[in-house]
């Protein structure tokens, strides 16, 4: 799916395959899984992408397999997950192409 005038800002299905039209030479994809303390994927977690100044950039809800995906830009990002199992953070430096991350959550 490409973003268009008619497309909203709501998140697409987080488990869907990457669109074939996506140009990974240009896009910086940040994808991964939210896992609880036992290492199990957390579905329905809210994952927030925060920029290098900690400002909110986007938020998605994880798929049944705990997956999330963002289309960002190269640089340092913080991923923060909120869930009924607790919250958690991870920081990553993204480059063009696909960047994978695991966000652990635990009861605060």
């Amino acid at each position, binding site marked *: 799916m490409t973003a268009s005038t008619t497309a909203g800002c709501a998140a697409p299905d987080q488990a869907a395959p990457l669109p074939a039209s996506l140009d990974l030479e240009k896009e910086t994809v940040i994808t991964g899984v939210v896992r609880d303390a036992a290492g199990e994927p957390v579905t329905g977690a809210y994952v927030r992408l925060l920029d290098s100044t900690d400002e909110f950039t986007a938020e998605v809800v994880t798929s049944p397999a705990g997956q999330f995906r963002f289309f960002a830009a190269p640089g340092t990002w913080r991923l923060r997950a909120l869930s*009924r199992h607790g919250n958690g953070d991870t920081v990553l430096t993204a480059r063009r192409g696909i960047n994978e991350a695991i966000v652990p959550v635990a009861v605060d």
Partner: protein
Amino acid sequence: MSRDTALVSADWAEKNLETPGVVFVEVDEDTSAYDTGHLPGAIKLDWKTDLQDQVRRDFVNKDQFAALLSERGIANDDTVVLYGGNNNWFAAYAYWYFALYGHRKVRLLDGGRKKWELDARPLTTEAVSRPATQYVAQEPDHTIRAFRDEVVAAIGTKNLVDVRSPDEYTGRLLAPAHLPQEQAQRAGHVPTAISVPWSKAANEDGTFKSDQELREIYAAAGLDDSRETIAYCRIGERSSHTWFVLQELLGHRNVQNYDGSWTEYGSLVGVPVALGDEPGKE
């Protein structure tokens, strides 16, 4: 307007799920969210198919809005409580829409679907139907809606508030980061617009910050209370969130939402565009 008349808490909502005259309405682009579980008794409005004209890029008109609400069983006297995902972006958009067509008793559920889910409050997949009504909509109130020429004329004269993320404001991104970035329009912002991301107004659970915190945020960003204000984002839903904060929570007057927003402005030929962190000159 104020917090007491514009917002309800999750606790209030849970206690009033069955109160006659209170209608809960979920508004979310992701309609599958409603289908996997919604507030008991809540109906659904689809911002794209129900609230927008299917040919032109515009709203449904007054008669279409009245027909929609009649069919869904919302009466003029009902208290409509809107909620949704994405930190209530689309619920705020619908709130602004109800306000535009003159519905008096409309509220936003503080924290929306996110807080409700994180609190583990009840959700159901039971089908909901309400008896039809004879809803009468008012003429659209254009004092709360800005069109593109008003935005161009506002450069350097009114408060322009760009509520997108800092990377969209500076021109580094063209869309929120959960969407692919391929776009036709130019990147940047309307010259003289200040950057106050919508998210500054919300806590991470999606609830709104306190009035005092909100006043400090906009004052620090340089919003001049004595001037009229136009808020915009990419397609007008995040700026509905900020319109709600400024006009409905803080009681500012003459705040307009520019729903054409950057997908329109950034595609216009011959208008000024500013790049980078600074608002830029006229």
